[in-house]
């Protein structure tokens, strides 16, 4: 790990001011940042501890729930307001990582986590466009079993690793972002960027900006939502494929639907086309299968991950079938 200056932030305006200094990283749980600092993929000059900021509340606000960005994954997953109104969020959090990591990792940090592509982490011998723009992508012709099939580019095929971000994209989460200059809101679906020719740009947070809270709007399809995660082992593993879904069904007909896929894309993958394919249809397997075909229409497999295309479809069909069966 390279040397850095460490500072405790006690007050928001000062933290935001210091955060704008070049090469500064905010730290909350540190589970991703410290790991990447050890392998020197991350090498900030300054590390600013933001844990003292008052961003750890979960509360009702208007027609929804606001969650502070410092709320730990384990606390958000267990919170009655999250469990009741947004079960997919709770499930996605509980299916993430391990109890130890969930106790430490904050929700803001979860959204800021970097990819788990092994070539990204390995800086001694492999090129990586994300780590070193223009150096090349080792995964495209390498070991790419865990990599993305949606939203990829010639420059990068790394999968976005978060489960929580997938559920947040499905349920129309909105991020509040602050800087010394003020506050703005960004839809969760607009927060992460496709790699394109600039895979080193992963989100639209500018220098000095901090995610301060996350807003979840109430909806019937959010109340009846779920997260299904398929992985190589039963627990403590990243997704091969996952689906965050929400359904509002009455009289056997789907009135509204939310669909986002994880483990398969370079960013949390909301599929509005699949949602449109579901609305107005009977809540049955043929409709679910059709929606799955729509969701994966643009998927592109690589040497070792072609299986994910069919697996993602089946994941979505199973998630929708289980959810519809639960209360249709």
């Amino acid at each position: 790990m390279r040397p850095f200056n460490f500072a405790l932030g006690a007050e928001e305006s000062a933290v935001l001011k210091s955060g704008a200094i070049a090469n500064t990283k905010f730290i909350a749980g540190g589970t991703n940042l410290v790991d990447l600092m050890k392998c020197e993929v991350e090498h900030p000059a300054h590390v600013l501890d933001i844990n003292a900021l008052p961003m750890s509340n979960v509360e009702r606000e208007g027609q929804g729930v606001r969650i502070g960005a410092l709320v730990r994954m384990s606390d958000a997953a267990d919170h009655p307001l999250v469990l009741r109104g947004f079960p997919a969020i709770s499930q996605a959090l509980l299916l993430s990582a391990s109890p130890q990591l969930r106790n430490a990792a904050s929700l803001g940090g979860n959204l800021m986590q970097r990819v788990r592509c092994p070539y990204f982490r390995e800086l001694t011998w492999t090129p990586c466009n994300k780590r070193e723009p223009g150096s090349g992508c080792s995964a495209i012709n390498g070991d790419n079993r865990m990599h993305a099939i949606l939203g990829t580019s010639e420059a990068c095929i790394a999968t976005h690793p978060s489960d929580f971000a997938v559920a947040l994209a499905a349920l129309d989460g909105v991020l509040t972002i602050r800087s010394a200059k003020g506050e703005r809101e960004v839809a969760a679906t607009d927060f992460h960027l496709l790699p394109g020719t600039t895979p080193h740009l992963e989100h639209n947070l500018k220098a000095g900006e901090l995610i301060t809270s996350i807003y979840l709007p109430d909806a019937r399809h959010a109340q009846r939502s779920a997260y299904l995660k398929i992985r190589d082992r039963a627990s403590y593993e990243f997704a091969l494929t996952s689906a965050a879904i929400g359904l509002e069904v009455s009289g056997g007909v789907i009135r509204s639907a939310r669909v986002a896929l994880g483990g398969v894309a370079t960013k949390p993958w909301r599929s509005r086309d699949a949602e449109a394919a579901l609305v107005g249809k009977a809540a049955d397997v043929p409709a679910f299968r059709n929606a799955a075909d729509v969701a994966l229409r643009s998927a592109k497999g690589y040497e070792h991950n072609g299986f994910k295309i069919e697996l993602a479809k089946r994941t979505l069909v199973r998630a929708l079938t289980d959810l519809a069966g639960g209360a249709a």
Partner: protein
Amino acid sequence: MTLPPCYEPLDEDEVPDASEDADRVTAAEGPAGSSRRSFLVGSAVATASAFVVPLLAGADSKPAAPESANATRVTLDINGKLHELQLDPRTTLLDVLRENLDLTGAKKGCDQGACGACTVLVDGRRVNSCLTLAVMHSGKKIVTIEGLSIDGRLHPLQAAFIRNDGFQCGYCTPGQICSAVALLSEGHTKSDDEIREWMSGNLCRCGAYLNIVAAVREAANETV
């Protein structure tokens, strides 16, 4: 010298002059062989007043403390005992326990949060001590495997691990036990499946899982 209001100020006589400090720092080599000179030129000189100064400690470094340009003072409460330390901010909680305090119960397995061998309790919650900076733990109550027994009496989980032979080589055991102590208070012990899911952050390469689950189940039943 003006300090931003977010930093905890040290006593005035402990705040070193930035130029003096820069001299001291540039004379030192980084641990990876990289000179700190380039690091300073790029960042610290320009920002010394903003970042470095309030956290620089005085000259009273203890022998165990690493030679560091920006050593940070922290008081850690470990197993009920307070430790005043001056640490390079890079030091993880795990490394402080093992290297500075000789508490070698928590183990360094993967050192990247993937195995759980380093699990300790921070304010009663289990965390991976390898993925957290020690300087972030001032004022928190840290309990390691060494702090679980009371007056020589084993914690019920320690006893249950022995009775159920919940280990083979023993390397993962301190982490398993600390994790299970938290698990008991979290209450996720209603079935063997639930125990397995909530112990999944602790790997055992010997494969003693069957007996680990049995030990946790037994301790959970005892403490009900």
